[in-house]
Each structure stands twice: as structure tokens, then as C-alpha cells.
């Protein structure tokens, strides 16, 4: 692979010694990495979010200078989705997706479940296998000079099941104000706000909104999804593995089966690992493998279990 660093481009100056870096940046392929692996449920939700967002009008207008052009759009007068004056022909799936997927996203977990079912019937994609996710837990959020306030304990929790606010791209209809949450705001509005806050890295604001969904819509799929999202925030961004563990356990109690259960069980394993609780982690991994033997994460869980049992 040394040619990648030496480069055969005659316009480049060859850098001596770059062979040592061969393999550091391999060409893009279907192997896993460097994006972190995701649990199947999260991948499914991401697909649902993408489809819903693509079908929905953008929440923010994309300044033309910021909208990504498709390669052909910049080279030919072909219809471009990024040209406001030449709106892309709306496809038949747009209204369908708007109705089905947006609604599914609003209902929370429904999106993941529906998407998965649809995908099960779809032509088998042979893409890179859904990445078995590693147990990666972000350390406590980068702390300012002041000691961070203790994260609020999780009561209920969520997952990004949003109709993702999309700012890149396309033909920009007039800007739509971000949904304002009122006391009677539907779950969809709250989730949209929570997702936007997460996107803005306002972790605590996002968490508060997710917990609000979980509390106000207790018992619904949206509440469970929100519970999971909140737990993930606590684990990955708020440095609160204990709170995350509690959140995952609540979600699991509410939906022990299906993809939500899979995500909750995996989260429990991640949280116990972050807490340094090896026995708890092993128990969580065993429970995960028993309940979801066919999960894309099952091989990683078994490997981790083996490592735990062989380590002193």
C-alpha cells in the first residue's frame, strides 16, 4: 500500500519515509472503521431518520453557498436537488415516506421496528455488515475549569428517533421555525428539539427533553426510545455510567423484547464495563447473547466474554 503515501501523482513531491505510514489511511472500502460500530437498533433508527429527513422539507434553509452540490449538478445543467430554482422532481416515495416514516419516527420506536421489518423484506443489501459495536464509552464530558454539576439522574429515557433536522442540502423552502415545546407539545416536537439539542452538543438540554418525553408519554414506544437516548447521553457524554445503567434497565423493563431490548441489554453491558464491574458486565453480556444470539453484536459480546473469563 506504500503507493498511497508515495503517490504516483507526478505533481506531488514524494515524502521520504512515508512508507512507514503505509496502511495508516487505507482507501475507503467495506471493512469496519474508523466510524465506531453501532448496535443494529441504532443503525436501523439512523436509516429511518435518513429516509424521513430526506422526505421531509428541511427545517432550516440551506444557504446556497452551504448546500452541497452533487457532482453532476456542478458540471451539467441536469436537475439538481441543491438548486432552489430547479427543485428535484419529487419521487413517489416522498409522500409515502413522509407519511409512513415521519409518523413512525414520531411514534418513536416504531421507526426502528418498522424499518427493520421493511428491511427484512427488502432485497438483501450486501453492504458492510452492520458493524458489531464495540464497547466504547466516552469519558466524562470535557470538563471546564469548574467541577461539572452532577448529571441529573435518569428517570426515563430516549433515543434519537428524530425526523432529523437537516441543514445540508437541497432545495430550500422557506425556513421553518424549530418546534417549540409547550406543555401539550406532542412527542414528535419534543423529540425534534431533543435531537437538535444533541446535534448542538447541548447534552444536558437534550437529556432534559428526552426525559420529558419519557415522563409525559410513559408507556409509549416513544418513551422507551427516549429512555434509551437519555441513557446513551449519560454514558457517552455526561460521564454518568451509573445513571446510564439505571436508564438502560428501565428501558429493558419496559420493552424486554425486540430491537429496543437488544439496545437496552447492550447498553447495560457498556455501562457496567464503564463502571469497572467485570462480573456485572459478564452477566450482562451473557444475558445479551442468550436473548439475542443472532445479533450483529453477538460475536463481539462472545469475544468480550471470553476475554473477561480468561483475564485474571
Amino acid at each position, binding site marked *: 500500500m506504500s503507493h498511497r503515501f508515495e503517490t504516483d*501523482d507526478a*505533481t*506531488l*513531491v514524494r515524502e521520504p*519515509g*512515508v512508507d*512507514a505510514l503505509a496502511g495508516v*489511511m*487505507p*482507501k*475507503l472500502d*467495506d*471493512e*469496519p*472503521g*474508523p*466510524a*465506531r*460500530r453501532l448496535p443494529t437498533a441504532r*443503525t436501523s433508527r*439512523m*436509516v429511518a431518520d*435518513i429516509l424521513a429527513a*430526506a422526505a421531509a422539507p428541511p427545517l432550516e434553509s440551506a444557504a446556497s453557498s*452551504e448546500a*452541497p452540490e*452533487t457532482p453532476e*449538478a456542478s458540471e451539467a445543467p*441536469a*436537475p*439538481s*436537488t441543491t438548486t432552489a430554482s430547479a427543485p*428535484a*422532481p419529487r*419521487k*413517489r*416515495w416522498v409522500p409515502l*415516506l413522509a407519511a409512513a416514516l415521519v409518523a413512525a419516527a414520531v411514534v418513536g420506536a416504531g421507526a426502528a421496528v418498522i424499518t427493520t421489518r*421493511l428491511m427484512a423484506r*427488502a432485497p*438483501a443489501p450486501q*453492504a458492510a455488515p*452492520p458493524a458489531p459495536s*464495540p*464497547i*466504547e*464509552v*466516552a469519558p466524562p464530558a*470535557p470538563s471546564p475549569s469548574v467541577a461539572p454539576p452532577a448529571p441529573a439522574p435518569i428517570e426515563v429515557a430516549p433515543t434519537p428517533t428524530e425526523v432529523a433536522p*437537516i*441543514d*445540508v*442540502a437541497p432545495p430550500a423552502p422557506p425556513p421553518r421555525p424549530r418546534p417549540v415545546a409547550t406543555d401539550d407539545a406532542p412527542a414528535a416536537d419534543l423529540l425534534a428539539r431533543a435531537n437538535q439539542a444533541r*446535534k448542538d452538543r447541548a447534552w444536558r438540554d437534550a437529556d432534559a427533553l428526552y426525559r420529558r418525553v419519557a415522563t409525559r408519554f410513559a408507556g409509549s414506544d416513544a418513551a422507551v426510545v427516549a429512555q434509551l437516548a437519555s441513557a446513551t447521553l449519560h454514558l*457517552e457524554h455526561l460521564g454518568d455510567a451509573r445513571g446510564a445503567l439505571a436508564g438502560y434497565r428501565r428501558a429493558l423493563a419496559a420493552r424486554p423484547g425486540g430491537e429496543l431490548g437488544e439496545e437496552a441489554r447492550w447498553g447495560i453491558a*457498556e455501562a457496567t464495563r*464503564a463502571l469497572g464491574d467485570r462480573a456485572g458486565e459478564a452477566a450482562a453480556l451473557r444475558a445479551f447473547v442468550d436473548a439475542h444470539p443472532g445479533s450483529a453484536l453477538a460475536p463481539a459480546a462472545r*469475544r*468480550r466474554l471470553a*476475554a473477561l473469563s480468561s483475564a485474571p
Partner: protein
Amino acid sequence: MRATSVPGSPMSAVDARVAAAAAGDRRALEALVTELLPRIRNLVRYLVRGDADADDLAQEAMVAIVRGLPSHRGEGTFTAWADRVAVRATFAGLRKARRARAQLDDGADLTSVPHPDGPPDVYAQRRAAVRLLDGLPDDQRHVLVLHHVLGLSVPEIADELAIPFETARSRLRLGMTRLRALHDAPPTGGRP
């Protein structure tokens, strides 16, 4: 959109899926998104620091790809086209993010619990690669990724980034030098 550029030639599975998706087949679209998502997530992660932002930007890139399907004319491979759209969407997203706040620079997501598979494996090596890339200035990082990961030539990079040829070349050279220094530097401690 034409999904194949060679009349009479058999359509590849991907081409057929692209054509069906662009024609309104919802299942084909879902399958296409599902198939493409891992690649785009990886590409975006090469380009940006931090896993959380990478996923948000990857999602935006995927939306841009889906919305851009009608403009894909079937010249070249679909994945190459999708890569370009993703790169542009990512740069647009980064520009917006920069205006809103300083770009994240912690790379904190990587200094976490090691992957259970343990090195050496492809995944671990690539995570290590982006950890090195996280130490580069954005302008050098982007040029390096476009050249080494996507295989773009310097003129193509200059065109893609709208910068002079010499600037692209200079960034590439500086980036490689910096990357080598980071690669050869002793570990600074902390978790892998």
C-alpha cells in the same frame, strides 16, 4: 437518472437498486441507504473529529445523497458519486458548525474503553488512524483524506476544495509530514 452508462450492458446489483430507488421504489431506497451508510459513516469519520459529530454529519450526508439521486447520471460508479456528495455535504456541515461554535477538538470518543476485539484488527487500526488524523489541522486533514482515502489527485482536490493547486499540494505535503511525526511520536499516555 440513468443507472447504467453502457447501453445493453447488464446492470449491476447496485445500479439496479439505484435506478429502482430513484424511480420511487421505497424498499430499494431503504436497501440502498442501509448498504451505503457504513461506508459514508467511515468516510465522514475520516474527515471530522469526534464520533458524535461524525454520525450527525454522516446522517446529513446520507440525506444529501438520497435527495441527489435524481441528479446522478450514472457516469462512473455510484459509490464514487456518493462519496463526492458526502464530502461536499460534510464540508458544508462543518462550515455551519464552525459558525455556530468552535470546532470540537477533543477526540474524546476515542480515548475510551478499548474495543473488545483488541488490536490488531482492521477496526482498531482504523480507529488509530483517525486518532492520528485528529491531531492535524482541518485543512491538512481534508486534503490527506481526499487523496489517500478517496484517491483524488491533487488537481481534483484543488477543484473539490476550491483552492489553488499549489495550496492543495502544500497542504498535502505538510499534512504528510505532520502525520508522520505524530505516527512516530511516543505515546503520550492515557487509554488507547
